[in-house]
């Protein structure tokens, strides 16, 4: 990074003026919240950094409305603790990337929106973008823009909220975000099916999700990946949340349904919390130097896909979202992007993001799934509609 000191606006107006100035003199800005995820994506060479660090605080929270609004620089930690005090939570279980990136800094709520950060609960509760009701941001012309609001149903005009979610700071500098929140469950438990191989677990997870048990997390950890999480070898985890009487009822029903398929163990509330935080934060691959991929795909193909990768590369993997999310760890200098994306195409399609790799690798390899031509063109036009002079996060998503 070159140029003057970091820009730290303390108001929307100040942020708008800074962006307008940068656009006027054709300078580029990298967008930062707490800085914990600066090592994801294509490395950027921006002229300066604009940070939301000095623009924080919860601006509106009424538990009975199930909605929270906060300035973009507010820490996720503060949001989660305020919600917990009122018996609520963010439905989509945002991941803390610091474990696998080995980074520090305090993750912000603005970044949760900007990268559409969603964890295990996503399979039933939707992604961050599904809970994101409204945004305020500064576009590349230095205008302050509002879209969406703080109500759960809203079809007033184009839904720019969705575009901002997951745009990795390439469309605007978020200043305020509003999320729908949900009651935290009274209790939770996890049913573990022990010793299934990957193929068997994929079938078991689909079977579990086809039933009426309202499972709120469904993951499979093969034996190797399991070593850092559980002491029982390969495990297929089914999480149940809710009122105590309902949780025990559903556990009983699941137990009888799977009693002939595998040995069963049940984790209590505390162990359940621990396990799903570890799964969420990709603990099996934390503290290592491997390349880590996040692969989103058709659940039924996941085990076959992983097997195909294992035949060609030193890979380790585990499955979340019934197999719809594969966390893949690849040893060695080659991140195997071509192998992974080719096999993905052969196994029903999807997309692969290189979450952890050396800077040199991320410069050479497309970190995000390359888009097909007509969609790529649309994406460029959308970028231009928000940021005509290309101020924000140059080249972070694509070269």
């Amino acid at each position, binding site marked *: 990074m070159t140029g003057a000191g970091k820009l730290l606006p303390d108001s929307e107006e100040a942020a708008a003026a800074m962006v307008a100035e940068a656009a006027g003199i054709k300078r580029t800005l990298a967008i930062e919240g707490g800085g914990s995820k600066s090592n994801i994506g294509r490395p950027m060479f921006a002229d300066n950094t604009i940070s939301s660090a000095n623009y924080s605080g919860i601006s509106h929270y*009424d538990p*009975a*409305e*199930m909605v929270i609004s906060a300035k973009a620089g507010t820490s996720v930690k503060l949001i989660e603790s305020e919600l917990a005090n009122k018996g609520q939570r963010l439905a989509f279980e945002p991941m803390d990337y610091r474990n696998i990136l080995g980074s520090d800094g305090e993750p912000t709520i603005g970044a949760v929106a900007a990268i*559409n950060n*969603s964890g295990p609960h*996503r399979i039933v509760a939707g*992604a961050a*973008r*599904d809970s994101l009701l409204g945004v305020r941001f500064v576009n590349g012309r230095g*205008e302050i*823009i509002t*879209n969406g*609001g703080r*109500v*759960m*149903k809203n*079809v*007033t*005009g*184009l*839904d*720019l909220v*969705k*575009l901002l979610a997951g*745009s990795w700071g390439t469309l605007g500098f978020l200043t305020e975000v509003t999320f729908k929140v*949900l*009651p*935290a469950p*009274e209790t939770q438990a996890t049913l573990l099916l022990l010793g299934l191989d990957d193929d068997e677990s994929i079938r078991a997870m*689909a079977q579990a*999700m*086809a*039933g*009426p048990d309202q499972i709120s997390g469904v993951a499979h950890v093969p034996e190797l990946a399991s070593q850092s999480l559980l002491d029982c070898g390969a495990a297929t985890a089914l999480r149940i949340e809710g*009122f105590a*009487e*309902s949780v025990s*009822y*559903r556990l009983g029903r699941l137990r009888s349904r799977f009693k002939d398929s595998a040995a069963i163990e049940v984790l209590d509330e505390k162990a359940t919390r621990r396990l799903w935080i570890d799964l969420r934060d990709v603990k099996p691959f934390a503290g290592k130097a491997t390349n880590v991929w996040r692969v*989103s795909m*058709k659940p*039924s193909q996941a085990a076959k896909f992983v097997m195909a990768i294992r035949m060609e590369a030193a890979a380790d993997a585990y499955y979340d*979202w019934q197999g*719809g999310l594969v966390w893949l760890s690849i040893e060695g200098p080659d991140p195997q992007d071509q192998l992974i994306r080719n096999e993905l195409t052969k196994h029903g399609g*999807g*997309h692969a*993001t290189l979450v952890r790799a050396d800077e040199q690798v991320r410069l050479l390899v497309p970190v*995000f*799934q390359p*888009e*097909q031509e*007509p*969609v790529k063109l649309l*994406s460029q*036009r*959308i970028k231009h*509609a*928000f940021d005509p002079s290309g101020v924000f996060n140059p080249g972070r*998503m694509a070269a």
Partner: protein
Amino acid sequence: MSEIAFLEPDKSIIARRDEIGEELRRLLPDDCVVTAERELVPFETDGFTAYRRVPLAVVLPETTAQLSRVMRYLAHEGIPVVPRGAGTSLSGGAIPQEDAVVVGVSKMSRILEIDLPNRFARVQAGVTNLAISDAVDGDGFFYPPDPSSQLACTIGGNIAMNSGGAHCLKYGVTTNNLLGAKMVLFDGTVIDVGGAAMDAPGYDLLGLLCGSEGQLGIITEATVRLIAKPAGARPVLFGFENGEAAGACVADIIGAGIIPVAIEYMDKPAIEICEAFANAGYPLDVEALLIVEVEGSEAEMDAMLERIVAIAKKHNVKTVRESQSATEAALIWKGRKSAFGATGRIADYICMDGTVPLGQLAHVLSETSKIVARYGLRVANVFHAGDGNMHPLILYDVNDADEARKAELAGADILKLCVDAGGCLTGEHGVGIEKRDLMLHQYSEADLGQQMAVRHAFDPDWMLNPSKVFPLESRGLNSKAA
């Protein structure tokens, strides 16, 4: 009546009517093109019947490839296009204009793929909302969004309007249940967005498409999420002595950490209208009614209802009636889902769709009554209380021009009230033409400018549904037509 303006039709296009019809017949099978004036009349309006415009022609393509050819031709000739699902829009989203070709998706009505292990269905855009759930019902699955028009409305229209329904409190609206779409752009380019995976790469085009009201492209195929049906579901009626008690009860249920599948609210006029039509057994001696639906096993529902009933008692609930059978449950929902139709039997009405924060419900209800009374009209309220999506039905006589004008003015006042209370103009019906000229009450010029810039990225010459959503006077350089 204070007329909502359409764009001035292009006379040079209308003058070429015959030639355009001929070319469309060359591009499509004969039975896919409608040009005879009498046959065009059914397409002149949608569920917002106060406005009518007979289109130049209607095309009903059978495949994406056919539609792509038609769009390429229409773009080349500069002819506006108005997409149409089943024509049930309540905001005028599908009302044509005289110089436009309507593209209907009704002939694309096949279910292409049902994949239960991966829990999705891939369907053509003209498949009706209910047909998806019907196709997987026997396997224990359903497609969650359930707009009242679900028997008729198409998935293509649902995406264009981001349709909701009574059960979206728990399961979300269309945007939360859509995995992928195939779409034809203004110039005939075909793109695929998303697919069977839970999320898609790049910018969230799928999210942008939902609720874009046919301005970004025409959807021909959708991949939607299927959900396993709960073990059981049970609606319960709660009658209250006044609306405030019912409103406070809603807030307390949610405050207690309980999210039922649905919480529907009806005031006395709505109860009477629906009961007279459906004989659903609604209590007639109460001022406000809540239909609360819980789901799960019998034991789970009992346990949850015990908690809900305890809360309702704190608000002096007068009547509590649990449905005792599937038939009774269906009847309770029939009453609610026929609210609009039943109201239409006793009066003409316009249906508002503002959404407000839950804490504002009681305030907005009482202000709504005052507004309507000020115009000397009557109102029936029936709406999705759990998510604050209000549907005041303003009753009037369509043959009385003065009443009709007053109804529109009262409606506009109510929507402004919703926005001022921290809500929005439309929760699930869309802007269409109906709320177009109120957009500046909710958004600034810059906000709308940003939305129009995105629209421009998809449709640079504003050929798709050009009279809708954005106030004509705010378009400036964004629309060559304005």
